[in-house]
Structure formats: C-alpha cells, structure tokens
C-alpha cells in the first residue's frame, strides 16, 4: 500500500556498532539473503523498518476511513459488496504489516498508541475527503495504483517478514485497482453528469496521488541508505514516473483530461513529462494540516476508545475460562 515512510530514516544508525558485524550484515544483504527477526541487524536498520512497516500499517488502517464513508451509500449491492471486501482487505493488510513490525520487538499496543497520539505518520493521501461516489473509483484506480507501484518492489525487500507480508498484499491489491477503474468506466459511459463527476474526482486526486511517492530524489536525503539495505529498490522519482506512464493512457481511455497543462509525451525517452508538484501542499498535509488530518485521527481515537470494553471483555472471558479449567483440574485431583 502506502509507503511514504520510505523517505524517512533514523539517523543514529551504526554509531557504536561493531564494524565486522555491520560488514557481515551488509554482505548478506548484498548477496540477496533475507534478514530474519532473530538475526543480528544494525540498530538503524531495525528502527527504519519498525517505522516504515508500522507507518505502512497505519496507512492501511486510516485508509479504511475515506472509503468506509461510502459503504452505506454505494449505488448497487454489487458495488457495496466490492467496497466492503476492499475495506476489509485494507484492515487485513494493516494486520499483516503490524504482525511483521512486531517481529522486530515492538508491541502492537505501542504501535497503536503512536498512531492515536499523532506521533506516527501515515500516508498523506488519506487526509483528503471523499466527496462523491466517483472518488471511490478514483481511490481504487489512482491511490491503489500508486500503492501497487510502491509495493511490488517491496516484495523483494531484504527483511523477510516485510517481504512476505507484501507478497500477500500485492496478490490482493489488484482487485482494488480493477474495481475502481471498472466503476469509473461505468460512470463515464452512463451520462454527461456522471462523466463530469469522474473528471472532478481525477482533478482532485491526481496531484495528491503523485505526492504518494514522496519528495523528489534531489530532496530525499535518506534514499541511499534504504537502497543500500535493499529496503527500497527504486527511487521516488523512478516510481512516480512508472506510475504516470502507466496511468496517463488509462485516463485517456476513460476520455478524461489529466489536470496538468505541462503533460506531454516525450517520443525520444518514451516517458510522459509532467508539471511541477506543489510540494508546499505536500509538506502542509504531512505536517498535519491537510483537509482531514484532525478528522481522521479523531475517528481512529473514537474507534479505539469505543472498542475498549470489547478488548476488556474478551480478556475477562479468557481469564474466566482459564480459571474454570484450573478449578476443574483441582477438583479432579
């Protein structure tokens, strides 16, 4: 899914670590061996992964909110079933990822706390609102499309549990993108008004989708270490270009106009050239001041607080049953 955390890294890496161990570790990574949770690893590698995987997980969880907004208003039973399944998948993807992060020695409770307190980040894209039904299609097509571009190389990430979780996620993600595109196709074919609604959704989601790949390579200071550790396989700009090249023809097939007057195909390079991304907007949203940042965090906090009695009751029930088993054993002795 959503991997902007790839662009940040803990900086205290390798300060006091044994140079031989670090070299042996790097040799294993260079040989494309997978690193497993109990293996020795540099502290910076561990911290980078904990943050990246957990932010990826948080993005899946928060990502349920903008789409969940439309479940009760889906236009047909088919679309409602698809949207429910998709949102359930996002929840599942969050859990695969939390499970991978926990192998690095951090607890689920800590990770949840970091999300709820606002300490941890999640993908900036989920701080935009879903205003019309076309937004649901646009999210599947663009947001999941961008996520897939990011996640396919993560299947080859050097950390075993992350790579295995990504393989599962990628297998499931393709349905997300296809249902979104199909939904939009149906809309653009039905009426002028619906086609306009789709164009409006594209206008609003296009640029934030491009921002999902993170800052430009010239401004992304931490890429090199993540690339050396084989956590990251392509740079932000490489992935963004791949996404644009794949997506522009799909927009044209829908009969839509990409909201970028600089967009032009370069025959020589075979790539689509595009205009300047509004990095001020990106920084504003990442800093917590996007259209829905506060609403998203409030919704997660409310869900967590409202579910407290369920967690308590489940544990109380387990305790009661364990006590009864214990009492029965004593009685039998």
């Amino acid at each position, binding site marked *: 899914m959503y991997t902007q955390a790839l662009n940040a890294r803990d900086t205290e890496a390798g300060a006091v670590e044994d140079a031989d161990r670090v070299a042996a570790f790097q040799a294993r990574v260079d040989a494309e061996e997978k690193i497993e949770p109990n293996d020795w690893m540099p502290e910076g590698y561990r911290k980078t992964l904990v943050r990246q995987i957990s932010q990826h997980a948080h993005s899946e969880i928060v990502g349920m909110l903008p789409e969940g907004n439309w479940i009760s208003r889906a236009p047909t039973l088919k679309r409602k079933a698809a949207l429910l399944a998709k949102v359930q998948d996002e929840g599942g993807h969050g859990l695969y990822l939390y499970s991978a992060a926990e192998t690095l020695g951090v607890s689920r409770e800590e990770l949840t706390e970091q999300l709820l307190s606002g300490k941890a980040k999640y993908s900036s894209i989920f701080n935009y609102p879903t205003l019309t039904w076309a937004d649901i299609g646009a999210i599947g097509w663009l947001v999941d499309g961008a996520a897939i571009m990011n996640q396919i190389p993560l299947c080859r990430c050097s950390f075993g549990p992350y790579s295995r979780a990504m393989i599962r996620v990628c297998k*499931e993600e393709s349905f997300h993108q296809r249902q979104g595109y199909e939904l939009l196709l149906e809309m653009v074919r039905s009426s002028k008004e619906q086609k306009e609604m789709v164009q409006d959704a594209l206008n609003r989601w296009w640029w934030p989708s491009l921002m999902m790949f993170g800052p430009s390579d010239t401004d992304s200071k931490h890429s090199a270490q993540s690339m050396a550790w084989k956590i990251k396989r392509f740079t932000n700009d490489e992935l963004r270009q791949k996404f644009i090249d794949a997506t522009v023809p799909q927009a044209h097939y829908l009969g839509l106009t990409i909201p970028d007057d600089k967009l032009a195909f370069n025959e020589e390079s075979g790539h689509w050239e595009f205009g300047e991304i509004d990095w001020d907007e990106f920084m504003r949203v990442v800093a917590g001041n996007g259209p829905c940042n506060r609403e998203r965090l409030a919704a997660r906090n409310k869900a967590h607080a409202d579910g407290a009695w369920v967690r308590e009751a489940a544990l109380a029930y387990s305790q009661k049953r364990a006590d009864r088993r214990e009492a029965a054993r004593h009685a039998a002795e």
Partner: protein
Amino acid sequence: MTEKTTPLWEVFIRSRTGMAHRHCGSVHAGDAEMALQAARDVYTRRGEGLSIWVVPSAEIIASDPAQKDEMFEPTASKIYRHPTFYEIPEEVGNM
C-alpha cells in the same frame, strides 16, 4: 498503558493443495478460540486454507541464528548421505 495486553499467537495454515501447515503471520487474541477466528478473518479471506493452527507465540522455541554454524555444519560434511556419493555404472540404468 492501563489496559492489559492481548496475547500474540502465531498462525499456520494448510493450503488446499495438501501441503503441510505453513507459518503465515500472527494475530492478537484473548484465547485460542478467538485466535482461530481472527486468523480465519485475517489470513483466509480468499479460500487460502483448509485448516488453521494457532500457537501462543511465547511457546515457540527457536534455534539461535548466531549458532547456525555449529548447529548445521555437521550435515554439510556428510556427503555420503546423498545418492550422488555412490557410483553406479551407467549400464545398470537409472537408480
């Protein structure tokens, strides 16, 4: 943290192809029954499995990766355990 932590379980699934149960991740749950239900919801949404095992994560005893040389070296030197160690004339045919 005021709340008690919910125990962690490792999840193993036997796929429909008749393979052995294979580790696929973990879930948090209060007891074994809830762990099984959570594992079903999280790891088998598309008919991936016909059978699930859940094991309390704390109960798993793992070998130490730092000792993998001592642990597994003895098998590396015993090449006579492999069929190719033995020479059979070609005339004998496949064996």
